[in-house]
């Protein structure tokens, strides 16, 4: 949503002309102490449109905090806020002829900063979808193409299958149904005709046996 800003960073959600400039053609140097910061920036922008470099540079420097506030408000990450500032300053330069002195500079700037912040968020989103972060890559795809790693995984799975097969029948059934097939305790109790308490005890004992066997070997 477009929003206007005050120098302190508080926002006004209205892009209508909230405060009009009494004399928009007033030169930047003749600004008085009674002017609000918003009026001062509007006067600087009018002067900049006429080619006043000093007023323009003051205006751009003064705009940075406003742009930062909009970017933060839009949810731009702190390390990308300065990118939004630069992009917005470039846009201000390119479209400065669209500023209407009958309206406030702050509303005009907030609309541009808002747009550039959204662009930054979209571009970040696209990049995140394309790129794989280090931690994720290591966790999910580490050595996935490595033949020796695949062979080791296969060997470990075979050992686990053998160990489960060597368990007493009650414990084996508990591990297969509850642990491997992830069926609920109630379902398994219904299908096998065993009590849930007995199933829990069998599962517990089976896991203890398997843990001892694998940890003992390693």
């Amino acid at each position: 949503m477009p929003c206007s800003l005050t120098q302190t960073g508080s926002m006004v959600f209205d892009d209508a002309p909230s405060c009009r400039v009494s004399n928009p053609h007033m030169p930047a140097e003749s600004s008085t102490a009674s002017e609000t910061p918003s009026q001062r920036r509007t006067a600087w922008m009018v002067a900049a449109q006429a080619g006043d470099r000093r007023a323009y540079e003051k205006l751009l420097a003064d705009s940075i905090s406003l742009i930062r506030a909009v970017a933060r408000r839009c949810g731009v990450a702190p390390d990308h806020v300065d990118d939004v500032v630069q992009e917005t300053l470039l846009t201000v330069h390119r479209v400065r002829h669209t500023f209407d002195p009958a309206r406030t500079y702050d509303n005009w700037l907030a609309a541009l900063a808002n747009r550039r912040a959204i662009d930054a968020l979209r571009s970040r989103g696209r990049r995140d979808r394309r790129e794989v972060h280090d931690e994720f890559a290591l966790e999910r795809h580490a050595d996935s193409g490595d033949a020796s790693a695949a062979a080791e995984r296969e060997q470990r799975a075979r050992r686990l299958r053998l160990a489960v097969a060597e368990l007493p029948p009650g414990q084996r059934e508990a591990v297969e149904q509850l642990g491997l097939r992830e069926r609920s305790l109630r379902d398994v109790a219904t299908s096998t005709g065993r009590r849930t308490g007995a199933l829990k005890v069998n599962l517990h004992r089976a896991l203890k046996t398997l843990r001892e066997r694998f940890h003992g070997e390693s």
Partner: protein
Amino acid sequence: MENPEAMSVSSSHSELIDRLGGALVPVRRLAPPWRRVLGWLLVVVAAALALLAHYGPDGMLQRWTVAPELAWAGLGAAVTAVCAAWAALSLSVPGRRVLWAWLPVPSALLWIGASGLGCLRVWFTPDPQVAALQQSADCLIFIIGLSIPLSALLILLVRRACPLRPVLTAVMIGLASAAASACLLEIGHAEASAATDLLTHALAVALVVAANAAMGGRLLSRT
């Protein structure tokens, strides 16, 4: 008290500000939307005058006397064209309210409602002269054919500004061009409004708006 953030302008920002300050030249301010709308309307009026010179006003006035709702439909289309063009040019200025997009809605309702009423009249009138399928196809070609240059002109006008909502602005451009073309069609349209006719007009307007949203949106999003 000074805002600490304002004081901590990083060196890269300072360099950019220096560079932009060095490149500063005086600019001619963008004309207000109403004046740019007038510029576009001049072209539409010129086309209307050319069509009137070719077909003459008699056929159109006679048809309006028999079926006054068609005059209301034409008026609705004309007002929709003006309002949608105004909305497009207003939306192209940063900081203007998105509510501008609602401006053409009431007149568009009048346009659609009056056209629909024309169809009802055809059902209840014993011997109206209604458009055949071939004539409906001609209407489709006329609306689309005229909408292309009118849309191109509005896109040029909008690109001079900075449309921050490119697709919505392009939709307004499409609606303005299609409505203006439908309004101009009234001048040479010899038949009463039938359901096929209304559907053809609706299809033409939908095609123009969709094409603008797809292509115009891309053209305008480079700002």
